[in-house]
Structures are given as structure tokens and as C-alpha cells.
């Protein structure tokens, strides 16, 4: 009997020493704790993911308790892993809800900007219409001016033609031939007679 108990006692002692030397934490638990602090510091989590964060808190507490009770490393790791993933989930849920809220605000902002754009477009159209009208009026004014200029030029031409006719001008192949008749001086005078002077005056006007 005594002999059979020795290995049992030995193994018990080993098991107990293993228990007492079990670390109070594992790397996974440490990671979960630091993730938890980060999530706690994130205001979006407390604003948008309260339920998920409470879940994560409960999971981390379970892992902490397991570590405090010096349970097996496997059990602590198991609980700590679940806690770590729940903390990450809370962070993601908070990010998603925050983005959804921002999306709503942005959609409203977009509508406002669209409205502004449409208003600006309408104003630009109005402005360009006004501008086109003004340009049309200016063009009409210019056309009238040109018309008037043409008419005055025509009148001038007609006057010239009349004057030439008075001078009895003839259009030939060599050009315009003007015959000046009755350009006379009185006897012993260096001054043209009044009829001659009138004829020369007319020629001067045409040449001018």
C-alpha cells in the first residue's frame, strides 16, 4: 500500500506546485486588459456601443476571476481570448455606428451643397441670359450705326454723282472725263468770270 501511494503523493505535489507557480496573468490576458483600457478611453465606445462594451466587461471580468482563482492557463487563455475579441467587437461596433451617424449628417450636408449648386446654376443662367440680351442690344445698336454710316456714305456718293452730273462728267474706258465749259476771263482781267468761278468751285468740291 505504502509503495503505491508514493507516486500518487509525488504527482499531487507536482500538481500543487504547478498550481502555485501558475502566473496570475497570461499574454492573452495582458493583451485583453490593454485593449480594454483603450476601448474605455474611446469616447465613441461609451457613446455608441454600450451593450457590446458591457459584454466585453463581463467577459474580461470572468477571465480576471479565473486568473485570480489560479485556474489553468488554458482556461484563463480561453476566457481572455473571448474577452479580447469582444472588446475588439465593441470597438468595431462603435466605429460602425459613428460612421452611420456621420453618413446621415453628410447626406444632409450633401443635399444643402446640391441646393447651393442648383441656385448658383440658376443665377449663372440668369446672368448669362441678361448678358446675352445686353450683347444683342449692343449688336443692334452697332448695326443701326453701321446702317446710318452706310446711308450717309450713299448720300455722299449721290451728292458726288449729282455734282459730277452737273459738271457733265462722262464715264469712259480711260476714266471720268469732265468737260469744263465757259471758264472765261473778262477782257484784260486775271480774275475768272463769276460763271467760270462757280464751275471751278464745283470741280474743287468733287475733287475734295
Amino acid at each position, binding site marked *: 500500500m505504502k509503495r503505491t501511494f508514493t507516486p500518487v503523493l509525488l504527482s499531487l505535489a507536482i500538481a500543487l506546485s504547478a498550481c502555485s507557480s501558475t502566473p496570475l496573468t497570461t499574454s492573452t490576458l495582458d493583451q485583453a486588459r490593454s485593449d480594454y483600457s483603450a476601448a474605455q478611453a474611446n469616447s465613441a465606445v461609451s457613446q455608441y456601443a454600450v451593450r*457590446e462594451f458591457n459584454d466585453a466587461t463581463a467577459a474580461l471580468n470572468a477571465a480576471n476571476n479565473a486568473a485570480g482563482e489560479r485556474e489553468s492557463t488554458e482556461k484563463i487563455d480561453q476566457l481572455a481570448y473571448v474577452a479580447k475579441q469582444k472588446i475588439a467587437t465593441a470597438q468595431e461596433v462603435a466605429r460602425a455606428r459613428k460612421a452611420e451617424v456621420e453618413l446621415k449628417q453628410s447626406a444632409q450636408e450633401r443635399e444643402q451643397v446640391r441646393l447651393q449648386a442648383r441656385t448658383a446654376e440658376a443665377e449663372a443662367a440668369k446672368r448669362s441670359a441678361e448678358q446675352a440680351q445686353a450683347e444683342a442690344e449692343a449688336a443692334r445698336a452697332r448695326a443701326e450705326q453701321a446702317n446710318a454710316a452706310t446711308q450717309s456714305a450713299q448720300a455722299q456718293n449721290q451728292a458726288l454723282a449729282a455734282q459730277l452730273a452737273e459738271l457733265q462728267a462722262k464715264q469712259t474706258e480711260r476714266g471720268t472725263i469732265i468737260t469744263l465749259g465757259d471758264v472765261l476771263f473778262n477782257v484784260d482781267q486775271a480774275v475768272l468770270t463769276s460763271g467760270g468761278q462757280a464751275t471751278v468751285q464745283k470741280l474743287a468740291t468733287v475733287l475734295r
Partner: protein
Amino acid sequence: MSPRYTLPMLCAAAVLLSACASQKAPATADVAVSRAAVENAAQAGAAELAPAELLAAREKMQQASRALADKDYKLASDLAQQAQADAKLAQSKATSAKATSAANEVQENIRVLREELDRANKQ
């Protein structure tokens, strides 16, 4: 095997089996829940938006199913819980990625509209 060991061995086996029997129902439920969580994550688009988490969840879920078939209910339950946590993370990652990109897209729209508006006002 000497008869001296037979009785304790039998006792131990009995204890183990009873432990297993008491764990069977919750482990089965855990595996079922984790399977549903993985399916939800896949539907949320986690395959593209959170592939690593979804893969981890799938693998653990399959391991849990295998453990369940091998009647290792403790392992099945543990793996199923991990798979569930992974799948939920994958799903929320996919959701947040989609929401973030949608919000960014609208912001980009606004930026372009504003630029157009500025150009129109300058003309």
C-alpha cells in the same frame, strides 16, 4: 492490467463520462450558435472585409464540430465560444468597413460638389 488498478480506473472513467454527458447539451448549443454567427458574418460581407477573422472563426467552428463528434465536449465548447467571438468581430468589422466607406464616399461627393460650386462662382 492488475486488478488493483481496475477499480480506480473504472471510477475515473465513470466520472469522466458523467462529466461529458453533462457537457454535451451546452457544447452542442455552443457549436450551433457559433455556426449561425459565422453564417451571419459571411452574409455581412466579412469574406471580403474581414477575411482573417472569418477564416479563424470558420476553422475553429469546424474544429469544434470535430471535437463534438469525438465527444470532447469541453474542447468543443471552448472552440465554439472562440469561433463565435471571432465571427462577431468579423461581422462588426465588415459592417464598420461598409459604413466607413459609405461615409467617406459621401464626403468625397460633397468635396467635388463644393469644388464645382467654387468654380461656378468664380466664373
